């Protein structure tokens, strides 16, 4: 056993060497958690959208369908912000009923199987559906955030946004990678 450790001990230096090398490894400053940046995307979308119906709610409600870390990120990054002078409220929805109270509903990838029911309710209630799964804009999502290499991009579906009673500013169309 002593021999074993005699030969293996140099290995303890291996992680130390990696650290030493990593000092010179080019660190790309500004690399953020994906969900943090998505939360900021969602907040920024509100600057380019205009809801037809004036809501009676005192708050601008952004819903996250079922639990995901996106709710935490939105809470952390957007809770103190305002949209049209209304304070943002972040809610986690455990069922379909509360969707109608939201202005935006985010559907995490892991719950995408429930998308059709969510979309049907959202469309009738002037709610923008945002997803994060490949190909969802084609399938009826208003805005779909996708990853390309190390950056996030988004695609928009004008017909779905119009059907939901939401106006889109031209600038948003220009920033989107694909417009359906």
């Amino acid at each position, binding site marked *: 056993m002593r021999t074993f450790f005699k030969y293996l*001990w140099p*290995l303890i230096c291996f992680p130390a060497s990696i650290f030493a090398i990593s000092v010179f490894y080019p660190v790309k*400053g500004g*690399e953020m958690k994906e969900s943090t*940046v998505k939360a*900021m995307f969602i907040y*920024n979308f509100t600057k380019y959208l205009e809801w037809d119906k004036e809501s009676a709610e005192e708050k601008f409600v952004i819903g996250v369908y079922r639990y995901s870390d996106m709710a935490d990120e939105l809470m952390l990054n957007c809770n103190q912000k305002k949209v049209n002078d209304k304070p943002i409220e972040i809610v986690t929805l455990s*069922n379909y009923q509360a969707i109608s109270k939201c202005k935006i509903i985010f559907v995490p990838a892991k719950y995408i*199987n429930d998308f059709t029911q969510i979309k049907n309710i959202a469309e009738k209630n002037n709610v923008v559906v945002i997803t994060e799964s490949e190909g969802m804009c084609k399938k009826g999502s208003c805005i779909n955030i996708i990853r390309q290499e190390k*950056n996030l991009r988004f695609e928009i579906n004008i017909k779905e946004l119009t059907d939901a009673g939401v106006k889109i500013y031209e600038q948003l169309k220009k920033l989107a990678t694909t417009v359906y």
Partner: protein
Amino acid sequence: MKITKLIGVCCFVIAFLNVQAQTDTASFNEMSLEQLLNVEVSVASSTNLNNRETPGIVSVITAEEIEAMNATDITDVLKRIPGMELGCDVEGVLGLGIRGNWAHEGKVLLLINGIEMNESLYATLPLEHNYPADMIEKIEIIRGPGSAMYGGAAAYAVIDVRLKSANKQRGVIANSSISAFKNALASQVNNIYVGNKTSNYSYSIIANRTTAIRGKRYFTDVYGNAYDMAKESDIKNNLMAINLNVRGYNIDVVLYDYNIFSRVGYDAIFSQAYYTGFKAGHAKISKKIELNEKFSFTPTIGYKNEKPWNFNDDYDTEEYEPFDITVREWKSGISFTYGLSKKFNLVFGGEMSNEKAVDNNGEIFSSNNKTSVTNNNAAIYAQGVLKTNLANFTIGCRANFNSIYENTFVPRIGLTKAWEKFHLKALLSQAYRAPSIQNTDANTSIQPEKSLTAEVEIGAQLTNNLSISVNGFDMLTTKTIVYSYDDVDDDDYYLNAGKSGTRGFETELKFKNKANYFGIAYSFYSTGKQSTVENYMVPQNADMQLAFPAHKIYGYVNISLNSKLHVQPQLEFKGPRYGITSYNEETDERYYQKINAMAVCNIMINSKAMLAKNLNIAFGVKNIFNANDVLIQPYYDLHAPIPGKSREAILKLTYHFNFK
């Protein structure tokens, strides 16, 4: 350095860092959509499994739930977990039992921000008032073996605690609670958190100071002598946790100075209370390096300096033996993650450690007749997860090599599947308990104990609001390492005693809608008469083990009276238990007493921002009906049961504000 001085130094650091942080945070939060499109994001694991699919029986408790339950320390939270129960070790130290098995000594792993908290001399995990609940962001508990990934202290369970951090909270939280028994102050807990995050770095600093007494009842030893615990059962704790992330380097530091004052060591009460101290400093640095979207690796280096079970003879007495050993440990490791595709993910790596224990009083270790001992350990591990349409398959293993005890290999396999409304898990895991420094010193031929655990879980999402899960388990441990006290040599003694283990089931029903929620958990175990270890046996009942109830129920209902006021009644029911309550020295006979079933009821009231925008006030009464709970020693030594806490009123104030 004294922890209080360290807190002072940190305040200056916080002030400095915060000035820097204000600018950077503001810039990120105010980025336009065009700017956000240029921000690079870190790679997420491509085969992340959610809790319904993860290959383990898992409980998760969030900060919101901890706040609503008005918990004081981590033991209040762990009571809610099916199959978990507190027991009493020597010197009044409390530890955990898992599924009816004593796990305190080397079989349950506690991680705080990824740092292993089990002390190195005996691998124990002292609980009660040393980890403040209000500073916890999330606890993930694997209620089952975790050795294949987590090593030799995770044979029965893993408790992974994430403290509040700048990822969730950018600002300051000041939290203070006071509680009282009738005519006696029970506890004072003060916590402060400061954290902030920018695009280049983040930091969080937590400081805690706790003073408490264990109760105000009378403790009666096995010889019938008693003393008033209100005067001599203090617990004092200072804890500081720092997390710093700079340019991808993640640095965690945890420091604590935890002292329990007790008039009982092993059996008879002493003439006065003595302290048992646990002092430790842990530091860990790691950095995740992503070579591409599929392959990343994380080197880690950790250092620990601790004095566990410490008592120095400040009292000039002969009735309590001084014990002053310092353990220094260097640990390094490297972990690789390879996501071949969205269907397959492989984690593998290795770690090495060097522990050195030095007796500061110049006493010699019996294993080598020197005043210090060294233990070297190395391990390699791997785990692959394959997602298919049929099910998710997990296969993993760990090989451990040690300079003192024999090499060990533990494999595990798992199958999980989640449908829309249901999920199924079937797991078979081998695990090991690594003998600690004092185990190998007391018995140089001691071997790692091994456990084989089979688990099956079925869960169902009954409605959008209601879910249920049921899991069955069968745990069999061979070469069980047991502790004993050698009266002749007046020293600790350890041996591989034989087979032990339990089988049983646990079930949880949970409901949650927007405003209200409730949960109820029931757990059951039986030895199945498979145990041959006398230390844990109950002579009157072969189906049970000492200290732990076969039946346990924990239920709570959180009712929102309005958006700012919540009430949470809680109920903890324990079935009958057995403990050694008296001892006849002449005949060497122990008396095993049946402790009747009992229930503890609590009520907690939480108000959020009622009096002031950023101020939360919580009030509650624990043990409303003043039930006589006890904390029992789960093996056949002679520490009589410690009386539980009587009715206790608690008031907690939490003030928080976020940095702009």
